[in-house]
């Protein structure tokens, strides 16, 4: 090869160029978004908002293709909006909001709901009378969030069915994602949405639970919303047209392919701001639309910068953001229930103008919700049954992006001397909530809302953080890039996640998932004792002994042994046994032992017992006590009157 280069410089240059071209092509190939899916659903919705009545009337034409090998004899639909119908819905019961009834019963407008007025098979028969409410999860007869429709003529494999709906909504006051506050409307989970027909011929169509989110097939949405002209509208997808009507209303039409949900918002007060974001791996910029509460004008840059940073981060690490637009909605404080939620190409942030800037709430929410464009929007895992796959993974990425965004400054809180990193904040809930149930289980099986969030968000994210420490950041990011590309526009399960991870890691990591994701294992590694004794036969040497114990769980860990003469010894503790005795002879006695000195295992429940000094120094503890004591003395001084 070397000779050839010398003999023909032009051809050598050509080879070199060809090599770089191939390399560049390969990089670009990796950077290209994966191909999109064949649509299974196609929604065409024509809705009219009646703000004065707090209601909405709509027609919907749904085309559904049976993607399985089994004929569908029935259809199932989500009517999520009926979660807000009254105090006896499963959602309200699980939220403990039955008390809502007594406090608010005089204000009927607090409740809402959806009614299907007509349903027919296009080119077929009328189906309205055949609608039956079912409650597959808890048999709650009062819950009206799932309907089943038997079909006279089943939908054969690969065939499609077209249905025409006419429905109306009574819009509730917003407290959980959807609804209205004064003339602000946020419309999420608002239309009859077909469930997912599975390969075994059953429907994946769960009721709306307090803790669960959503799951649906990818498809094509075209939605026209008619409402008074003064409203500023934002929605999933791209605007197609704005038509001024004779009655003083405007019809806004939005369309988007390759998404699995559609949400929109409308408020006359919105400031609509736009910016073009150049994103790695994309030919053209992404349009970032910010719908801002005018009272939050000072948050404009915080929103833009954090969402664009997150978009670039994810595009670089996984694959380029594949849609042409992202809409960030900044709900008014009165509609705080709409804050912090993700929908395809549309997210809601959260800004409270009287919070100090050192509280990075706005950035945290924006970054988290943007992360969901990948972990939920594109890699569309099952939020009902395996919520950790989107919330846990996304919380991990939230931490990564926040740390990168704020660099060395505390990423979550930097106020009045209180400094907290985003990744640090997850340990608090973990320490308070006992591990009574696995992370990976249906959302409505969790003991409580706080158990759900502590496990699904925090525990799962800390677990992934621990995998990062174990495998190394590069390998983990390599895995996420491959996994995201492999499962973009698909519905991966925990099994798929583990299989993909094992492949990249080059080892079977089932032992870790079995303990901490599918099981109720907790991890606690500890230094039990250490001792140094002068050797009788060699007074210049010491017999050093360290006893390590696994109080709970198993995870390989680095152990750092410091000797009094300043030397350090490393040991990889990977034996599965409950204890490990390390013995060695050395000219110096032990100084201290630290398990996991680089803090690569944040999953370790108790960090106090991770280290031990042979001759404990009280210097640091006295310094800490000095701080607390001084605080107390200051308080006393303030009390003197």
């Amino acid at each position, binding site marked *: 090869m070397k000779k050839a280069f010398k003999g023909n410089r032009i051809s050598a240059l050509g080879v070199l160029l060809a090599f770089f071209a191939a390399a560049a092509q390969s990089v670009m190939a990796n950077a290209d978004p994966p191909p999109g899916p064949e649509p299974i659903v196609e929604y065409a919705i024509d809705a009219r908002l009646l703000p004065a009545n707090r209601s909405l009337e709509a027609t919907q034409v749904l085309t559904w293709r049976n993607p399985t090998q089994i004929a569908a004899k029935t259809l199932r639909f989500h009517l999520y909006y009926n979660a807000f119908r009254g105090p006896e819905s499963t959602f309200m019961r699980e939220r403990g909001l039955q008390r809502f009834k007594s406090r608010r019963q005089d204000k009927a407008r607090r409740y809402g709901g959806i009614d299907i007025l007509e349903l027919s098979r296009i080119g077929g028969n009328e189906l309205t009378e055949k609608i039956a409410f079912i409650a597959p999860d808890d048999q709650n007869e009062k819950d009206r969030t799932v309907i089943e429709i038997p079909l006279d003529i089943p939908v054969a494999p690969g065939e499609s069915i077209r249905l025409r709906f006419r429905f109306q909504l009574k819009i509730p006051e917003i407290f959980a994602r959807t609804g209205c*506050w*004064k003339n602000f409307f946020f419309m999420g989970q608002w239309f009859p949405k077909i469930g997912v027909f599975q390969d075994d011929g059953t429907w994946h169509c769960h009721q709306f639970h307090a803790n669960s989110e959503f799951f649906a097939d990818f498809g094509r949405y075209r939605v026209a919303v008619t409402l008074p002209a003064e409203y500023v509208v934002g929605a999933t997808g791209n605007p197609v047209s704005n038509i001024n009507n004779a009655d003083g209303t405007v019809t806004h039409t939005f369309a988007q392919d390759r998404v699995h949900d559609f949400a929109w918002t409308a408020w006359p007060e919105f400031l609509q701001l736009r910016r073009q974001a150049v994103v790695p791996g994309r030919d053209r910029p992404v349009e970032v639309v910010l719908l801002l*509460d005018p*009272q*939050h004008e000072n948050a404009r840059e915080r929103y833009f910068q954090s969402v664009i940073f997150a978009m670039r981060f994810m595009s670089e690490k996984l694959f380029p953001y594949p849609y042409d637009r992202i809409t960030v909605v900044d709900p*008014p*404080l*009165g*509609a705080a229930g709409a804050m912090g939620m993700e929908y395809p190409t549309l997210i809601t942030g959260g800004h*409270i*103008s*009287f919070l100090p800037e050192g509280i990075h709430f706005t950035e945290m929410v924006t970054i988290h919700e943007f992360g969901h464009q990948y972990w939920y929007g594109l890699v569309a895992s099952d939020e009902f049954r395996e919520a950790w796959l989107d919330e846990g993974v996304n919380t991990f990425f939230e931490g990564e992006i926040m740390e990168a965004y704020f660099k060395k400054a505390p990423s979550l809180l930097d106020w009045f*001397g*209180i*400094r*907290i*990193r985003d990744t*640090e*904040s997850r*340990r*608090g809930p973990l*320490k*308070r909530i006992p591990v009574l149930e696995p992370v990976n289980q249906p959302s409505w099986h969790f003991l409580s809302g706080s158990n759900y969030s502590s496990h699904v968000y925090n525990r799962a994210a800390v677990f992934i953080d621990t995998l990062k420490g174990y495998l190394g950041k590069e390998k983990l990011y390599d895995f996420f890039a491959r996994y995201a590309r492999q499962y973009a526009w698909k519905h991966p399960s925990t099994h798929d996640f583990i299989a993909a991870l094992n492949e990249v890691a080059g080892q079977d990591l089932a032992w870790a998932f079995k303990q901490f994701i599918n099981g109720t294992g907790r991890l606690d590694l500890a230094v039990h004792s250490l001792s140094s004794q002068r050797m009788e036969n060699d007074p210049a040497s010491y017999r050093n002994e360290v006893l390590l114990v696994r109080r709970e769980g198993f995870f390989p860990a680095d152990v750092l042994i410091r000797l009094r003469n300043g030397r350090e010894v490393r040991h990889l503790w990977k034996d599965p046994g409950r204890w490990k005795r390390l013995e060695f002879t050395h000219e110096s006695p032990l100084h*201290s032992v*630290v398990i996991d*000195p*680089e*803090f690569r295992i944040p999953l370790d429940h*108790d*960090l*106090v*017992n*991770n*280290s*031990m*000094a042979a001759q*404990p120094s*009280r*210097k*640091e*503890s*006295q*310094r*800490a*006590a*000095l*701080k*607390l*004591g*001084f605080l*107390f*003395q*200051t*308080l*006393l*001084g303030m*009390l*003197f*009157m």
Partner: protein
Amino acid sequence: MKAVHVYLASFRGRTAAVAVYLWASGLLFSLPAYLGFSRLISFTLDGSQLLEMSDQYGSFTVWLELFSHAETGFRVLLFQLGALVLVYAIFSLFLSGGVYGVFVSGDSPRLGRFLTHAWKNLLAFAKLFLTCWLLWIPLMAISVLGFVLLAGFLRESGNETLFRWLLPVWGGVTLIMIGYTMAVYDFARIRRLQEAGSTWKSFRSGMKFVYRHIPRLIVLFFFFLVPFLLTFALSSAFERIAEPLPRIVTFAGLQALIWMRCFFKNALMHAETLLAREYPLHASPELDAERETDTI
């Protein structure tokens, strides 16, 4: 100018000496905190290097680990310290008797005299303390009600812009009310020592005095607050730079700062007594009017 004059006149050796008593009593009451935290943290760590690992773990994580590891211990200690705070609040009645006693009488600031005054005035001051709740309860009610209304306004209207303006207004009004009632309490005690009247009479006299001398008192409180708050900034700066210093030096430095706070507080109390002496209760309204022509 009178307020400035009395404030500057309050910077005397006797003010500094009495400040030592305040500082020492504060330290005495704080010793259980210093020792309690020290013992508890040492016991919890038991040789652990947790505190040394704060660069890796993050300081929030370190404190979280520490508190959650010895949650019961910290709860018990904090409960005990809470009880101590209550005891100190009562003890501060005793101390203030000594401080005002020394300043009003012009007596020697020696410890014996200080304690004699403190003991002699305790009952009278306790009665005044209880009487002043007639002011403090409505003050708290007004302040809490104001906040509830403000929060309700924010919830219903969503007008954050106006809320951002109203919140400091609410805070300012609350501070003014606190300042006013504290001044009444102070001057009621001074009048009680000057006139030896009944509790009720002293209370009313204190109110009257504060009402008549509002501008002067504002100046006085301003002169007190600026250096007083400065000590907080100094202490946080000192805490940052004290990291490499020996603990005893850090401790001594922090105690010096506490003593400075006591000094500024005493200077205010001394200035109040000087002001009250300038405008005695039996002075004729004409004299008062004449004095009022002074600029502040």
